[in-house]
Structure formats: structure tokens, C-alpha cells
């Protein structure tokens, strides 16, 4: 295996990991505040749809991105009203939102574009284009570092870099700010936060707003960065893989990055080596396609250890009985 192959796989890893990363961080904020969010998948999907369709009609991917974030925020709002204000079951609300997103995207898409739930193909300014970082040309002569910089680090869309930045921001917010401390506390022991005179409801709503924004970014990346348009069910289970990555990372930001990169890497390897000779035996395609899932089970079962969710997760906060 040469450097170019390794770089191509790592490059694909970055692309595949980014939507997972946004969804995973979104889930992290929500669950750290004590709100389980099964609806990450639905938020990704609805944001993918609205960002692609608004980008297609206005021709600007940035307006599309805003529309995607707005749609994801609306979903977050519904989840918040159902599970925080009305103290409903968070899992049921999440599942319902997934169904809603799955249906509404196709219905609205058909009525707007008449393409069977697709959006038109996006071109030019309606898509996120890869950006070339400075010094790519200057470094191209340097062995190893040159190609690594040009292939792996440079040449992604802006949302990929934003995703990495979001990890650092999440870590800083959670562990270095007063808001982060309160957010973690409200997921572990909301009574103590309430006793300290801080509004549990406001904290939880804030967390859910952040969740909505992050999912919006992830969904927009799917349809306007990774692909060039929306097709029905294009999130393809990424919201659920992000939930698995969240458990794998034990609700910690840097580990979430590692977990998402691992899942992205497995997908990239599966895509690249559909057909390889290994020790003289021809490994069948089906095995290579199943490999990411097999490794996921092995890793989750064998290496994670005990994953303890935030203690107040899933329970609506009731001030007095």
C-alpha cells in the first residue's frame, strides 16, 4: 500500500466522518443536558432537504445553509416543547420527528420541484466547493508533507474544517465555561442546578438550540457538500450511527471526533477495497461491505468498557410533586 492510497482513504474518511461528527456533537449537547435525542436522523434529513432546495432556488449555498439550520431548529423546537415543556417521552418524540422528516421532505419536494422528492442538481455557487488552503503550491515539492498537505488537509469544503473547529469549541464550552458546567450539571442532577437558582428549562432549551444548529450544519453538508442535491432518505442512518459514536465516545467531545473518524475510516476502507486479495485468498465484496458493521460490533462490545450516560438523561424535570 503506497502513500497515495493511504491518503485517498484518509481523505475519504474526512468526508464521510463530517456529517457524523456534526450529528454526534449535536447529540452530545442534547444528552449532556439530559434530553435524549433519537431525532438526530430526522434533523439531518430535513436540513439536507431545505438547504438543497433553497440553494437550488436562490443559487446561493449560504442562504441554503441558513434555511437548513432553520428547519433543523424548528424540529428541535418541537422536540423541546414536547419533551421539556410538556414533559413527554423523549424517545417517542424523537421517533415521531424522524417519521415527520422522512415524509415531509418527499411531500414538499414533490410539490416544489415535481421530481419525485428530489431537488434539482446543484451547480456552482449552489454547492460548497472544496477550498484550497494557502501554501499548497509551495509545499508540493516537499516529500510526504507536500502530498499530505495537498490531499488530506487542503481541498475540503469549509464545513469539514468547521466540524473540526466545532469539536474544539464544544470541549471549551463544556469544560471551560460557566454555561458548560451548568449544562453538564443539568444532565446529571437538575435539582441541584435548580436549587442554585438557575433555570433548568432555559438551560435545556439552549442545549436543544445548539443541537438544532449543529444538525443543520451536518444535513447541509450531506446535500450541498458531499452530494449535489437531495434525494429521499439520503441521511441513510447516519443519525443513528452518530448516536452509537456518542455512546462509544462516552459523551466526550474529543473522543467523539475519534469515534466519528473511525466510523468514517471503516466506510472509506469498505468503499475502496471492494475486491482484494488477502494472503492469496480473494476476499468477497460482501465481506468487505459488512466489515464496517462487524468491526463496529466488535469495538462496541469489546473495547468501550462501561458507558454511563448522564444520570438525568431521558427524565423530564419536575420541580415539585
Amino acid at each position, binding site marked *: 500500500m503506497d502513500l497515495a492510497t493511504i491518503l*485517498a482513504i484518509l481523505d*475519504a474518511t474526512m468526508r464521510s466522518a463530517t456529517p457524523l461528527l456534526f450529528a454526534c456533537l449535536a447529540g452530545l449537547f442534547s444528552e449532556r443536558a439530559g434530553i435524549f435525542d433519537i431525532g438526530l436522523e430526522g434533523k439531518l434529513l430535513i436540513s439536507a432537504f431545505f438547504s438543497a432546495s433553497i440553494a437550488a432556488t436562490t443559487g446561493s449555498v449560504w442562504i441554503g445553509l441558513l434555511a437548513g439550520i432553520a428547519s433543523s431548529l424548528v424540529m428541535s423546537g418541537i422536540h423541546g416543547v414536547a419533551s421539556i415543556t410538556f414533559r413527554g417521552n423523549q424517545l417517542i418524540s424523537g421517533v415521531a420527528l424522524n417519521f415527520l422528516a422522512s415524509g415531509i421532505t418527499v411531500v414538499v419536494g414533490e410539490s416544489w420541484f415535481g421530481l*419525485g422528492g*428530489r431537488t434539482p442538481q446543484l451547480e456552482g455557487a449552489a454547492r460548497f466547493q472544496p477550498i484550497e488552503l494557502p501554501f499548497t503550491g509551495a509545499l508540493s515539492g516537499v516529500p510526504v508533507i507536500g502530498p499530505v498537505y495537498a490531499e488530506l488537509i487542503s481541498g475540503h469544503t469549509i464545513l469539514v474544517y468547521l466540524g473540526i473547529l466545532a469539536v474544539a469549541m464544544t470541549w471549551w464550552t463544556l469544560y471551560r465555561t460557566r454555561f458548560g458546567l451548568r449544562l453538564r450539571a443539568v444532565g446529571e442532577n437538575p435539582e441541584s442546578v435548580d436549587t442554585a437558582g438557575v433555570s433548568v428549562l432555559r438551560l435545556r432549551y439552549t442545549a436543544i438550540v445548539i443541537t438544532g444548529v449543529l444538525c443543520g450544519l451536518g444535513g447541509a453538508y*450531506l446535500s450541498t457538500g458531499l452530494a*449535489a442535491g437531495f*434525494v429521499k432518505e439520503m441521511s441513510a442512518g447516519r443519525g443513528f450511527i452518530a448516536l452509537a459514536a456518542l455512546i462509544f465516545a462516552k459523551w466526550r467531545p474529543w473522543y467523539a471526533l475519534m469515534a466519528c473518524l473511525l466510523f468514517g475510516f471503516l466506510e472509506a476502507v469498505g468503499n475502496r477495497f*471492494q*475486491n482484494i486479495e488477502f494472503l492469496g485468498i480473494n476476499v468477497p*465484496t460482501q465481506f468487505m461491505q459488512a466489515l464496517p458493521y462487524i468491526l463496529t460490533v466488535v469495538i462496541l462490545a469489546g473495547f468501550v468498557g462501561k458507558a454511563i450516560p448522564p444520570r438525568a438523561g431521558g427524565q423530564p424535570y419536575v420541580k415539585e410533586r
Partner: protein
Amino acid sequence: MSLMKTFLSAGAALAISAVAALAEPGLIIDLGGKFDKSFNESAYNGAKRWVDETGGSYIETELQSEAQREQNMRKMAERDANPIVVLGFANGSTLEKVAPDYPDTSFAIVDMVVDAPNVKSIVFSEHEGSYLVGLIAGMKSETGTVGFVGGMDVPLIRKFACGYAQGVLAANPDAKVISSMTGTTPSAWNDPVKGGELAKAQVSQGADVIYAAAGGTGVGILQAAADEGVFSIGVDSNQNYLHPGSVLTSMLKRVDNAVYEVFSAGAEGFEPGIAVLDLESEGVGYAVDENNEALITDDITAAVDEAKAKIISGEIEVHDYTSDDSCPALTF
């Protein structure tokens, strides 16, 4: 009295519409969606052409999941659609079960052979059409490496891949053909993100022409090829217009003609049995239009026309993967 009249006339209107409905043909759009720009869309275009030309109407439903196949087929038959066209090999076993229950209804199935007195099986010689586009790919490739991205990993798609590989090797015996499949479930027909990733992985391995035989997934494959600056080959419908200059050609599979003919023949002119649409009957072929005519040079046209004539005369025999589940030109 006037109320009675209203009822009577309403009843009469219903009866008339019921009689009219008897002659309506039906079309069941398969998974992947009506506007997949490929297989299903080709069928829809055939039906639309029939509507435009005859002014008739037809009943159409679209499958949303694997579980709806039987229910949809029965419902269509009970709504008195006749003949009914079902698309795709995956309907074979369902139709085998449903067809005997509606002996007075005629069914036509595309891409599969079902042996029943009221079923017409329409199959295409995709390997021959794929051979021709493979020949073009082999002549156009500068790196000597070309790619194939299939949808669901089934014998039918391997038939495309195998014909393609044979064509590539005929043009350049040293060429390398990389083959990838999107998945093993029907969702592989509608996963452009994964298709794009597979195409990019092939480009990084040196492929400079990529043939997409993947239904709706193909949209992502052609997009990735255009982004990476390599050539792609579309499938089923003419997809040359999607990315002019990047889409080298499209392997045409005239599902539209098949649907159009079944609809035109109607229930009266229906002929059960197997119909093979091959190069000779123009059931398969390759597309040249204003979007790609600059890419197809005269040498290529000459070579492809020669190969086409030889295939029709039997001088070149393109191996059909489905005949013995193996391919001399490609390992899966």
C-alpha cells in the same frame, strides 16, 4: 324524483367510467423512484409518450418499500388495469405468485422471465450494449484503468459489468477494470452519496472513465466524475445532458419502447412469452447527441459500428454473465 334521477345518472356515469377503466393499462414504478433519471424514468417516458400520442390514460403506482410489491400488484389487477407492466427483476417471484390469480389480466415484466400464460417477459441484451460502451471507454481511457459502479449486487448488474469489461479489453487488452457495487439491498439503487464516494475511490486508483449502472445512485457517480474531471458513462436513459463534456455516452436500454409497445398493443394485442430486445432490434445501444458528439471521435464511431455489426452477425459473441454466473473478463 329529481333526486332519483341524480342517483341514476351518477350510477350510469360510474358504470361508463368502469367500462372505460377496463381498457386502462397500468404501470408499477419500482424502488429507486420515478425520476431516477435512469431505469424507472425511461419506463415513465414510454408511458407518457403513449399518453401523448393516443390521449389515453393509465394507472400508475410507485413502490415505497420491498414489502409493497405483492399488495401493489394485486391492487392494480383489482382496479382492472390491463395490461399491467411491472419493472425490475425483483418482482419476478411476486409475479409468479400473483399472475395465476388473475388469469384474465395480462402482465408484462421487464428484466425477468416469468413463465405463465398471461405474462410477457421482456429482457434486454444489456451485455451487448455494455460491450459497446466498454469499447468506447477502453479507447478513450488514457490511464488504461476504467471503473464500473453497480447498484445492487445482483446477476443482472454483473451482466452489465461483464459486458463492459469485455468491451474494454477488446479495445485495450492491457486495461484494468475496477468494479464496485453500491450495496446488497434495494436501497443501493438510491444512494448517490455512496455512489459518489465509490467513484472517487476509483478515480484515486487511476480510473478515468467510470460506467454507472446503478439507477438513482448513478446521479452521484456522474456528479463525482464531473467534479474529479474524468469521464463517466450513463445508463438506461440518455444521461448525456446531465454533465455535458464529462458524460462520455450513455448505454441506452429502451425500457420506454418496451412500455410503449405493451401499452399500444393493449389487452387485445397482448402476446405472452419472452421478448428479447437486443442490439439488432435497437433495444440496447449507446447515445450520441449534441452534448457528447465532440467526445466521440470518428475512430471510435467506426470501431463501435464495426463491433455492433459483428455482434449482430454473430462474429463477436459477448459473454452473458447470467447464462453461467461467471465472467471471463472480470472477477467479482
